[in-house]
């Protein structure tokens, strides 16, 4: 896996937001790391430290103030990305199917092909029977499934998840963990997931980056050497406990939500 060139190479990244007083708000300082193809990377850190900002830079929505973000595997530009936020952010005027096929429509994929890929995605995400439902008729968990399906439908090179499960209840969250793992094993997309939850990071990721307080820089990169395929029960094993403890210590006494 590490023999391939990295998908993303972040070098000495700095992000400063302009402010009224002219001093600027420094969100990220001198951050360097790499993301390998097909890797599942989790990013944890205190809230307000710059995690969402980092994802926005990776998505190409925000320019780096300093340093560089390179995509060695895509010499002529940036990779295709899929985005999921804490809120589902669906288009309320579009049906579930039409929300999911949006990226394909933007790419000019013919309607018939978009529909059949959309329906396959609906089946994969356990949304059968909801193709023509409107977002207002969905529960939070279902809406987030649709958001995930929309992020995956165009087979992105990089899936960016910003606390995608934070707003869901515990049971729904755990079911979606397993589904995300299942899909990730199936599609083999590279994933970067920002999360508050140490458990979530360890259960899903190959590697966890711990960021410091703002301005964010790298506190620790922890490889997660837990066997795959993983299930939620793994969190009761001693090795999981040791990893969780190291993460919590790195996060600096401040204990994030389990």
């Amino acid at each position, binding site marked *: 896996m590490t023999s391939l060139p990295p998908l993303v190479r972040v070098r000495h990244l700095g992000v400063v937001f302009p402010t009224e007083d002219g001093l600027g708000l420094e969100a990220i300082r001198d951050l360097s790391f790499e993301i390998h193809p097909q890797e599942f990377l989790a990013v944890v850190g205190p809230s307000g430290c710059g995690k969402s900002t980092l994802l*926005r830079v990776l998505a*190409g*929505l925000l320019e780096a103030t300093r340093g560089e973000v390179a995509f060695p595997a895509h010499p002529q530009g940036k990779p295709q990305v899929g985005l999921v936020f804490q809120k589902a*952010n669906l288009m309320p005027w579009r049906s579930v199917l039409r929300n999911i096929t*949006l990226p394909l429509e933007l790419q000019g994929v013919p309607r018939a092909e978009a529909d059949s890929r959309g329906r396959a995605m609906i089946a994969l995400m356990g949304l059968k029977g909801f193709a023509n439902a*409107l977002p*207002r008729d969905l529960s939070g968990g279902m809406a987030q499934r649709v958001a995930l399906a929309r992020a995956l439908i165009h087979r992105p090179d990089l899936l960016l998840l910003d606390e995608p499960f934070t707003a869901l209840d515990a049971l729904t969250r755990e079911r979606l963990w397993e589904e995300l793992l299942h899909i990730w094993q199936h599609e083999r997309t590279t994933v970067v997931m920002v999360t508050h939850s140490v458990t979530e990071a360890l259960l899903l990721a190959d590697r966890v980056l711990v960021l410091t307080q703002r301005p964010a820089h790298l506190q620790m990169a922890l490889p997660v050497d837990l066997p795959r395929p993983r299930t939620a029960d793994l969190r009761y094993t001693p090795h999981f406990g040791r990893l969780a403890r190291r993460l919590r210590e790195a996060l600096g006494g401040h204990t994030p939500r389990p």
Partner: protein
Amino acid sequence: MNLAQTRRTVFHTARRSRHRLRHAFLSAAVALALWWGLVRLFHLPEFLLPTPEEVALRGWQAIQDGTLLHHTWITLQEVLSGLALGAGSATVVGYVLAKSRPLERLLAPYLVASQSVPVVAIAPLLIIWFGTGLLAKTLICALIVFFPVLVNTVVGIRSVPEALRDLLRALDATPWQVIRYLEIPAALPVFLGGLRIGATLSVIGAVVGEFVATDSGLGFLINLARGRYDTPLVFVAVFTLIALALALYGSVLALEHHFLAWQTPSGKPHR
């Protein structure tokens, strides 16, 4: 939502609108009865307040000799072309203002100030400059329609969720795709609200224009009939104007029902 719920919603909506229709008929009947009673009770002469029958009879005459249709058609042309011009330009200007804070800061004071000048006051000027034909009336209607549509366009475009903008940018959507897939549908509810107000204001604009320069149209008909003490004909023209405004309002409502069905929450009325 399952099928049973859908059917229940449809059923409720149908029953509600039947209800509303019955209320409208009932209140119209009461108003007519009061009107009729008033004339009979105080023995009012026809030129002060004609009875409903006299108005209906005069209306029938005006339809038969073609005057009503002629003047209604003139007014309708002014109203529709003014609405198209006013709403069209307001949509373009509103979109540009919504996209550019500096431009909005620059132009907003002038736009707001322009609203304190009553259209009645500038209508004579427009007639002097552009004559008594369709053009001047169209401009008067457009002026009165412009502002509400402009404001609602700005508010509508500003209400587009930032997260969805980010999503489309991350998907490399073109500017035209952002307009088509995001901004138009997201801004449509607020925009149509503005258009609904604009449509009825356009009728007022047309009458104002016709009052200033008497030539033809329902406003002209009112002036003409008043001069001849033909009060029933005044009523006929006024009722036609009301019908025109209601029809326009209803057309925009129909557009809303068609395009904004997604907005109607299950089991709750549209407004």
